[in-house]
């Protein structure tokens, strides 16, 4: 199944790239990432790249290959179970690919003593929440995208939760960049509390998205209508 999905990703990358042009939310995300990037560059915090880059890759992959399956896919000889498996494996792949980049880059930084193991673990957790959360947004089919938002209202609607989730992700990245050269024991209790609070908020947002939208979005991929 992974091979099939990768073949489809490779074949349809150009038409999938068009979806980025149609998606205005990604501009806001890139804007914030760019602002943090400039600040990091000025403070020589180059490890930002090894955190932001995988996050951006997962975001881009989610927007390119998630969002909907085209009608032709539903015409292919696949049953609902196969389409469900395709959706699940596709979701996993869009997390796995940038995760490999994240691990390679951050393990190298660890060996270069840019940050400690505890900080790496915190970065890994924040990245993990971001990757899962971003890809859940992208799953519903185009025909049912509006319906899924209306069918599963939560704290207003899906978009509210999504915006909140993205904002917390960005804040956590800002915090991580500013604490990277310290070990946990060197951090002020207030700084530790801040990390704990925002990671908890991100955890709550991710769990909410998974609980309320993940399986529903997979099920939406089973049928065209």
């Amino acid at each position, binding site marked *: 199944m992974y091979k*099939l999905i990768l*073949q*489809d990703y490779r*074949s*349809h990358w*150009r*038409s999938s790239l*068009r979806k980025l042009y149609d998606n205005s939310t990604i501009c806001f995300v890139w804007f914030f990432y760019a602002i943090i990037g400039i600040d990091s560059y000025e403070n020589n915090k180059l490890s930002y790249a090894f955190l932001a880059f995988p996050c951006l890759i997962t975001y881009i992959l989610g927007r390119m290959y998630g969002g909907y399956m*085209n*009608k*032709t*896919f*539903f*015409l*292919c*000889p*696949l*049953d*609902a179970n*196969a389409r469900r498996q395709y959706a699940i494996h596709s979701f996993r792949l869009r997390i796995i690919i940038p995760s490999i980049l994240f691990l390679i880059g951050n393990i190298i930084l660890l060996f270069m003593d840019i940050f400690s193991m505890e900080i790496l673990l915190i970065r890994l957790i924040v990245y993990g929440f971001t990757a899962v959360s971003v890809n859940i947004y992208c799953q519903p089919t185009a025909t049912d995208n509006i319906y899924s938002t209306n069918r599963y209202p939560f704290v207003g609607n899906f978009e509210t939760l999504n915006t909140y989730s993205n904002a917390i992700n960005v804040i956590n990245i800002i915090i991580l960049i500013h604490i990277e050269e310290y070990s946990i024991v060197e951090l002020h209790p207030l700084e530790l509390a801040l990390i704990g609070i925002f990671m908890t908020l991100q955890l709550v947002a991710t769990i909410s998205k998974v609980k309320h939208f993940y399986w529903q979005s997979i099920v939406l991929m089973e*049928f*065209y*209508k």
Partner: protein
Amino acid sequence: MIKLENISKHFDEFNFTLSNISFSIPKGYICGLIGENGAGKSTLIHLMLGLYRPSKGDIYINGHNISTDEIKAKDDIGYVLSEELFDPYLTLLANADSYGKYYSRYNRKSFIEYCNRFELDCKKKLKTLSKGQKLKFQFAFALSHSPGLLLLDEPTANFDPNFRKEFFSILTDFISDGEHSVLLATHLTSDLEIIGDYVTFLHKGKLVFSTDRESLLESYRLLQGEAYKLNVINKDKLIHAEKKDNTMTALVTHRCYDTYDKELTVSVPTIEDIMYHYVKEDAYV
């Protein structure tokens, strides 16, 4: 080859219902699906393709239920739909390979041969093609995976006259072994006069009739004559009558022993005549 049993489907957003559609197409025949705009032809084809799930009823493609045995049913269907389906940024060959890998009998060489026959360049991107060429591509792809059933949704209107002849020739060859069938949804009833073996008529989501073409044409007569002659026509047999100036045209059901007033001109109606009169009046409901 294809069998529909009590198919019903309701759409809240369009306030449209397809209700109790039952008919079948045997192997080795071409069935025309006719009906006015909005009758439900495309909806029915979407149901047969497994894109929509029926509210009620079953659809069997070569013995496989489209709902419970979806893979085998869809593997046996080739389609040409009047909409943009494939990736516009890929070449024809790349598109065919990308979706053909899901079909058990997809043959790349066969696809290339059909493209050459249809004067399509496989290396051109889909977006550079005209609408007619895109439909030819769909047709080439449909044939390349050796389906048992072709579902065609109004393709002929966009084909040039030369290709239309070739298209009909291909369809005739396709069914010639007696193991394949074609369902052709069309407004051009003249196409069915050429190649249609069966005719299925939908009107406002309901099945009016589904029968072989010869029986259909033998079941109706078109009467023309002076307007007052309308009174002598048996009302039980009258489908619809139209008056213009002092003349009238009426469609009536016919049995082989029926006789008609000598002053009436009696002719065998075309499929278009039958459809026209049914649509004009809901007398059949």
